[in-house]
């Protein structure tokens, strides 16, 4: 096991036993390990997969469905194909890697990726006033989405 993953395991244990942090991690303070992972949860509340599922589909939140198809979500119309299907993504990646992708895909796939960073303030120019200084998802919504992704096992 590499260090960040040991920390991940530790963090999981600690988080399971009680709150250890005060408030969510700020977008600028999210720690990316060398292996493109974010091991520690951004909040001290476990992600809720049901909430994550909603944020995933909601056009004003993740709108992940704009780019990714998910068979399990066939109740929703219009799955995009800009990105890969996320069926079985939990088999391919562990939560620390999924969290890193959702927080800031640019750190994982490179600057040129179309996938927006959902918990970062490294954004494009001329951000509309109502979105200035804000992330697309809240820390808890990121955790919820990651929790949902971990349910996509086939």
């Amino acid at each position: 096991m590499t260090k960040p993953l040991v920390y991940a395991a530790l963090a999981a244990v600690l988080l399971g036993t009680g709150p250890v942090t005060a408030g969510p991690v700020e977008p600028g303070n999210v720690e990316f390990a060398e292996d493109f992972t974010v091991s520690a949860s951004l909040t001290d509340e476990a992600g809720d997969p049901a909430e994550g599922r909603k944020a995933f589909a909601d056009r004003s939140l993740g709108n992940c469905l704009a780019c990714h198809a998910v068979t399990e979500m066939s109740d929703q119309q219009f799955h995009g194909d800009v990105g890969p299907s996320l069926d079985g993504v939990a088999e391919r990646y562990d939560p620390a890697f999924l969290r890193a992708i959702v927080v800031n895909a640019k750190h994982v796939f490179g600057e040129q990726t179309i996938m927006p960073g959902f918990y970062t303030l490294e954004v494009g120019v001329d951000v509309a006033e109502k979105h200035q200084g804000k992330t697309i998802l809240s820390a808890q919504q990121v955790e919820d989405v990651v929790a949902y992704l971990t349910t996509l096992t086939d």
Partner: protein
Amino acid sequence: MGKNKLGLAAAAGLTASLALGSAYSEPVEDKLVIDGREMTTWTEAPADHPFDELISGWHYRTDETRALEADSFENPGMLYVERGEEIWNAVDGAAGKSCASCHQDASETMAGVGASYPKWNEAAGKPYNLELQINECRVEQMQAEPYKFDAPEQVALATFIKHQSLGEPVEIDLAEGDMQKWWERGKDRYYLRTGQLNMACATCHEDYNGRYIRADHLSQGNVNGFPTYRLNTGGMVSLHNRFRGCIRDTRAEFPAAFSDDLMALEVYVTWRGQGLSVETPAVRQ
């Protein structure tokens, strides 16, 4: 899970997305014939172009939408062409003139004209699109008020004039004045990532045309059909309205219509689609 596995996983993500390239939703192969005339909607790109082939947005639309554009009796945009013709012939302003007073029969005097805009305007020291030229005629020749951006008369008149070039290849002159500089500026803008979503024009229309982004089949973002009739809003959409909509969708503030930023973008994006036929009024979803 060890580092190697994660490293591999990251690489797998990248290959998975590259592999999708072959499974993407192809633009539909079809021929667009309007009033017996075949349009150039799919053509080889020039050597210095980012694409190998230039494809009209028409090929990315559904069977129904494509059929609607092909039939000028059914095409709802043709109503705006008719409205534009009325305006062309209507006297307005203190000089007591109409467009026709100076330009007579548009089917002759305006044939092919719309296909070569934007054009360098020496007096203004910047490129003019059709809307700016119309406003200049109104102010200077007719002593009438310039149209406000997207005034219904402006859209109808621009649609009517562009329609006089139906089927003509889009071709602009970058050798005039400072057009080349405006082209450069437009190109920078095309690749500039904007907004909270951090996307450029190129992110959607160059990297991912052919794919679906939610319900929308992404095209190359060519301008040859403008102003276009949009089915989901039930009206005409001017080019700068479309530009602003696309920029707004990145969650960015958008520049004013006819601002230098958007004029430069118009020059550059028009250049990207040179050789495609003018399709005005195109029908889009």
